[in-house]
């Protein structure tokens, strides 16, 4: 059991009152709120350590560089990477995926090659591969879902065995359905068929212990802001043996070894992947986010999310005008529930809940292919995190009953 009251106390924003109501923040899949520890770390960085990294020999620059490299070490430990050379800082998961598409992808994927995705991917893990496919004459293949709205592993097996697969790019967990994909098996099958694997960890990093060594994936992408960290800091993990196969993404300052008038040589990894002045305060804040999450324990976080999901599902199935999407139970699933209120557009549902101080998202959640596959233009999404509790779920369910009052 998490000590929710104590956790809540660490999040100043949860004490604000939208429309005069107590804030119930159920939009955690979009971004989580930040604990004081993270907020203060970012301020601390600017109060005590700020200088440009790597460049200058003075006292502050050393502190700044140390802060930044400490963050890299923290991330390395957090996801159990073998070496910190594998940890590249980006702005977010989207940039991390684009990074691999524009570098490794354009270099190694060619005509007739196949890129395998799932139908539930976020646009950020679709569009970069459409770009590669179009530029290189490669083909995209999508794996769909089974009756319980989970990834159809048999279809995946068939697809991978059809051959020519160069890359499998899948989400670890879905931002719409909450399903957790069997990435162990996917990575194993992909490797046995000669394909590399990129995991979009945007929705798994906040609530699952990630061990990239054990997973064996080639690339892992995530955002700091979905795991209590600041916005504008993200991570790309590149497996050690691939570091030389991945060309630099952006070029310029900081990433070089030597520059001549007509050519240059690059710094070793990870610096060759990080051109220009980086987001040091974001990286420094991320350290505190990691500490906070580890203090609670990832197993406890997932368990808490699943308890709330199960509780909410048990209430929602009772309401005959609520249509749920996704698996019937909370097993093997993160704290995300997508649904619709019959005959009410999701946007209207969200506005009405908002008047009660309840923040949910409505729309296609950057997953239009999935929406089309589910046969709906949009859904409402409630997503839970460590500071949410059952009384909030009750208020949310009551709020949904109010929604019907406005629509006959």
């Amino acid at each position, binding site marked *: 059991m998490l000590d929710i009251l104590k956790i809540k106390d660490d999040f100043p924003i949860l004490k604000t009152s939208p429309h005069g109501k107590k804030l119930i923040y159920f939009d955690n899949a979009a971004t989580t709120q930040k604990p004081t520890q993270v907020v203060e770390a970012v301020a601390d960085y600017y109060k005590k350590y700020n200088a440009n990294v790597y460049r200058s020999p003075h006292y502050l620059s050393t502190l700044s560089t140390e802060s930044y490299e400490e963050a890299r070490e923290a991330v390395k430990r957090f996801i159990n990477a073998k070496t910190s050379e594998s940890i590249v800082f980006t702005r977010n998961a989207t940039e991390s995926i684009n990074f691999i598409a524009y570098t490794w992808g354009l270099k190694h994927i060619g005509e007739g090659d196949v890129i395998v995705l799932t139908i539930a991917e976020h646009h950020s893990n679709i569009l970069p591969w459409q770009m590669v496919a179009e530029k290189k004459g490669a083909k995209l293949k999508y794996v769909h879902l089974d009756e319980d709205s989970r990834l159809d592993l048999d279809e995946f097996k068939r697809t991978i065995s059809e051959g020519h697969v160069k890359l499998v790019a899948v989400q670890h967990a879905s931002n719409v359905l909450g399903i957790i994909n069997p990435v162990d098996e996917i990575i194993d099958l992909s490797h046995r068929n000669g394909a590399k694997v990129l995991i979009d960890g945007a929705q798994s990093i906040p609530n699952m212990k990630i061990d990239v060594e054990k997973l064996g994936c080639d690339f892992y992408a995530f955002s700091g802001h979905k795991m209590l960290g600041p916005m504008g800091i993200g991570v790309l993990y590149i497996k050690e043996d691939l570091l030389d196969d991945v060309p630099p993404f952006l070029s310029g300052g900081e990433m070089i070894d030597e520059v001549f008038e007509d050519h240059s040589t690059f710094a070793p990894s990870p610096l060759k992947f990080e051109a220009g002045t980086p987001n040091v305060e974001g990286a420094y804040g991320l350290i505190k986010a990691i500490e906070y999450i580890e203090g609670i324990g990832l197993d406890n976080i997932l368990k808490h999310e699943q308890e709330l999901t199960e509780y909410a599902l048990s209430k929602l199935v009772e309401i005959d005008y609520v249509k749920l999407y996704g698996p019937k139970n909370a097993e093997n699933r993160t704290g995300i529930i997508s649904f619709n209120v019959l005959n009410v*557009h999701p946007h209207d549902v969200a*506005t009405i809940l908002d*008047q009660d101080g309840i923040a949910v998202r409505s729309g296609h959640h950057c997953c239009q292919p999935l929406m089309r596959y589910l046969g709906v233009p949009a859904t409402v999404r409630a997503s839970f995190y460590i500071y949410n509790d059952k009384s909030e779920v009750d208020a949310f369910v009551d709020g949904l009953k109010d929604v019907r009052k406005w*629509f*006959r």
Partner: protein
Amino acid sequence: MSDLNQLYSEIIMEHYENSPNRRELENPTIKERGHNPLCGDDITLELKMNGDVIEDASFVGHGCAISQASTSMMCDLIKGKNKKEALKLVEKFIDMIHKKDVDLDELGDAQVLQGVSDFPARVKCALLAWKTLEKII
């Protein structure tokens, strides 16, 4: 709750749920799709022109109550107007939604959408039809 009363007033719900303008025209002179990619409101506006005059207007599509009611109200309002008059109404409506001081009377039922100006996240929904019309006449 009083804010929601404004947003989901009787008259808005009536246009949303039972709009006579939700239909396809037989031989529309102009047909134009408008959509809000972020929230998924998606309408197709159909106009039957007689010279410079909008003889008939209708729409099909789906979306939230605000976008659909707003479209229906606009169709009511522009029937029988010439292009210049219609454009003036569009301008008026957009001004109203942006909280500018305008004489609301001319906007007919659509003036009840004034309340949307207090819901910044819904402004786009209310404007969809009007921006679409602005593009084609």
